[in-house]
């Protein structure tokens, strides 16, 4: 599903964001990526989205090579990804429902199905009462949940969530983590970056990756009920 081989990413200013990363992810896996700011978490997600191209090594997502010249196919690939951006990227001047439906309008889904899917995603995140509110009127935490609803309503093969709990209180953050983690049961691969390690301490059946200075520092799996130690 996702396969990276000695993948590096160097930005035009010379910053080496990712260093020789090799990883193989299977469908339905849940991955938590932790690490301090600037460790390469967001850069890693950006390469998975085709927003950045590896400068060396290779990367394939759902069989699609992430390389320059493949922009059209990468755009197709993005239809199968549910991204949750750190800065939300909600569309201003639209309601919550419109924002959630916006991510599905070009997927060939009928209007009825779109509404059902959007409604169910919003209900799952406790936002059904806000469906017709303009996104400008939402609190920071609500906006974050709308961004998540937009990603999951598309029923993607991969969910990429960049700091999805960054602005939520502890209880809401845990709810979001649990919700995102639950998609693993539908064979959806879920990759979540966070620097809040305390939120994922109790999570089971997941791959934990710690990144630092563009390297994968630690990678380990934890089965259900197995106590984790680094």
């Amino acid at each position, binding site marked *: 599903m996702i396969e990276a081989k000695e993948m590096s990413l160097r930005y035009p200013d010379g910053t080496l964001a990712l260093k020789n990363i090799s990883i193989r992810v299977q469908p339905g896996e849940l991955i938590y990526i932790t690490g301090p700011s600037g460790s390469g978490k967001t850069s890693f997600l950006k390469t998975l*989205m085709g*927003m950045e191209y590896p400068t060396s090594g290779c990367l394939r997502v759902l069989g699609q090579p992430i390389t320059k010249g493949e922009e059209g196919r990468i*755009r*197709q*690939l*993005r*239809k*199968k*990804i549910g*991204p949750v*951006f750190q800065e939300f*990227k*909600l*569309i*201003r*001047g639209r309601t919550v429902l419109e924002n959630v439906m*916006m*991510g599905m*309008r*070009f997927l*060939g889904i*009928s*209007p009825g199905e779109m509404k059902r899917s959007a409604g169910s995603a919003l209900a799952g995140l406790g936002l059904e009462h806000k469906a017709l509110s303009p996104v400008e009127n939402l609190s920071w935490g609500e906006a974050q949940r709308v961004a998540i609803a*937009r990603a999951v309503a*598309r029923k993607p093969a991969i969910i990429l969530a960049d700091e999805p709990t960054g602005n939520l209180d502890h209880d809401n953050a845990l709810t979001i983590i649990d919700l995102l983690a639950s998609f693993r049961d539908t064979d959806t691969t879920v990759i979540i970056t966070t620097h809040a390690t305390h939120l994922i301490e109790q999570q089971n059946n997941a791959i934990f990756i710690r990144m630092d200075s563009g390297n994968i520092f630690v990678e380990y799996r934890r089965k259900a009920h197995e106590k984790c130690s680094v």
Partner: protein
Amino acid sequence: MKNALYNTGYFLKEANKIIRLNWLSNVFSFLSTGLVLFVLAVVVSGWSISNMLVETLQNEAEISAYLDGGTGTSQTLELVETIKGIDGVWDARLVDQTEAYGRMEAALGEEARILGLFEENPFEAFIEVRINLDEMEAVLERVESLPGIDYVRDNREVLGRIQSITEGLKNLGILIIAAVGISTLVIISHIIRQGIYNNRAQIDTLKLLGAPDSFIGFPFVLAGLLLTLAGGVLAAVFAVLLINHGYGYMIGSISFVPLPPRSQLILGVVIMIGTVSAALGVFGSLFGLSSTKNS
């Protein structure tokens, strides 16, 4: 296609939003597009009327072939038939001395009394030949060479002037149409570029969600189309008012100018403005979109 139908409401809403986002600028663009298309409507109406005038004048272009003194009546009638058979001649008929006198009398009006000073009818009989203006030279050559024809009065200067006016009007029309087309394209493509710039965050998000360019671009094309169509409606309304007013004036004051039927002219102008505004709207928007694609 199915997607496009599902999303019709969304596209219209988006186009409306694109227009509203820069409301004042778009109102001015609508007015200037309307004005530019109105100029086009005026030119095309003028062109249509002048074409009809020229066509009428061309149909009435005639030369006068004067006869040798000794040409008898039967020979004259034979000549008329021969001339009728020449390529480029639409009709030929004999104007005898009496008719020639009567025409001059009518042309002089109150001054016709001067003709009373003549003891005899001073006018000669001649053959009036209606010709195709485009074949004037060849016809003149043939008629002049016929036995029994003394000389031909050809009004060449007048006919030539009519021809050059026709050409001039055509060229002017083409220039104005080109100017109108280019300025409308520039206005619309500028509006679309501005719309794309104002919506860049949304476009970026849609791209990241995997939306195809056609999905992202269609509302902009629709916005450009709606703006130019609105400009076209404005232009058509003013053009219809102008034609109605102009016909009232022309029929009253310069009734000798031949005019196409009013309803036919109005229908033609409205269809032309609608088609041109739609085409310019689509092309202008596509041009605006393609010019921003790489950036």
